[in-house]
């Protein structure tokens, strides 16, 4: 593996539901270790499905994904999806609806995976968890239950929970879409903080301001294919493709 090997290499990715509803129709994406990719596009265009496939949550029809040059996901001849569970553990994901474990307090949510998956001692995991919570301004909430938190707090806890496993890639699936507008900033702030630390990430969002500020690269996805792929200034500011332009105009409410 050379230094220039892509962090993620997606080739010919096809995914359908029951062979009828074709969601991804031949995606090719190569992502470098320094990339912060924001995926935008119309609903049903395959953005979230792409993230779910990357997390190993979905079966695929054909194609393959390499992670740091190693085989991660592929479809074998008989239509079965083969996922390397070890590679999967180096990827973290945050979902739109938080998906915290409601029966555990904040600390409990953070240390579950490290203690159960990596066999880390509770004391060590708790210490790391407290450090993360302090960094995210949540130290006071360590013993609160998810039901006692605001949406913004829940989502920051969810991010901290994923970071406990030291992921090499983070996936954010519309993580601010379910939040009240005044809570969006605190979550985006945390993600920007991660970006400054060079954490590779793929973000699906409808928030164009956020996309512009965090992306090193924007991919416009529609109809299950990559329509346009480039730096944010170009894709968001001066798109080449007609479909991208239409979409951008609609979400920014601009008429040129």
């Amino acid at each position, binding site marked *: 593996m050379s230094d220039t090997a892509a962090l993620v290499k997606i080739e010919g990715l096809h995914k359908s539901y029951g062979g009828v509803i074709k969601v991804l129709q031949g995606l090719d994406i190569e992502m470098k270790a320094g990339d912060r990719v924001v995926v935008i596009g119309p609903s049903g265009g395959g953005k979230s499905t792409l993230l779910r496939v990357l997390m190993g949550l979905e079966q695929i029809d054909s194609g393959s994904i390499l992670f740091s040059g190693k085989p991660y996901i592929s479809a074998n001849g008989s239509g079965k999806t083969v996922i390397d569970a070890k590679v999967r553990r180096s990827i973290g994901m945050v979902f739109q609806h938080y*998906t*915290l474990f*409601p029966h555990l307090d904040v600390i409990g949510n953070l240390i579950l995976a490290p203690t159960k998956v990596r066999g880390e001692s509770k004391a060590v995991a708790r210490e790391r968890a407290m450090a993360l919570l302090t960094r995210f301004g949540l130290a006071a909430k360590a013993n609160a239950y998810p039901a006692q938190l605001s949406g913004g707090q829940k989502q920051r806890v969810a991010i901290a929970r994923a970071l406990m496993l030291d992921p090499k890639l983070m996936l954010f699936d519309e993580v601010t879409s379910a939040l009240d507008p005044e809570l969006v900033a605190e979550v985006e702030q945390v993600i920007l903080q991660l970006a400054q630390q060079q954490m590779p990430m793929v973000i699906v969002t409808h928030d164009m301001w956020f996309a512009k500020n965090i992306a090193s690269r924007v991919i416009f996805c529609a109809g299950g294919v990559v329509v346009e792929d480039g730096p944010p200034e170009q894709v968001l500011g001066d798109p080449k493709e007609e479909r991208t332009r239409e979409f951008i105009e609609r979400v920014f409410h601009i008429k040129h």
Partner: protein
Amino acid sequence: MMSFNFAIVLKFQEALLLGLWTTLKLTLICIVLGCVLGFLLALARASKSAILRGVSGVYVEFFRGTPVLVQLFWIFFCLPLILGVELSNMASGIIALTLYMGAISSETFRASLKSVGREQLDACVALGLSPWVRTTSVVLPQAVLRAAPTLLSNCVSLFKESALVSAVGMADLMFVGQNISNNTARPVEVLTVVALIYFVIAFPLTRAVTVVEQRILKRLAV
């Protein structure tokens, strides 16, 4: 003219307490074993294997759809013949009520398992949790919490249904009460007291169901 004489019951308080102890022991053992069985049955009914689903489904429907009394007779008189071993009254009682509790609690668990959403399972995969950790640390605790109020009702039912073991000669509270009532010819007084003893234990539990329900709903409202 007939008059009530509740004082007579006092003479038998030791016998009644002994009977109550048997009832409580039997009920508690069957609650624990029955809940374990019920949870496993609920997992089997939600499993991918058609055989597991079929067998567990038939089991549950059979035990829910037949009188407990008949099940008791069956275990007490037929099971020793089939197994070829003598079973003590207590052992037969435990087997019979555990099988029954397993069936009714499995329905409770089934509903609560369904309420643990797909998204929770996605989160487990994203965190790299093994199927075992997922079941024991995420699904089971949530299912038990959500099932708790109904489960508590199931327990109260079992406590009352356990009186049926008196019909096959187990010396539980009901059996002792019937004996005293036969010997003293004071069925009204004795059986009223027996009913009161059942009520004194069952009533706080049924009240607790409401309290537990509210607290859990608050905790799990995410």
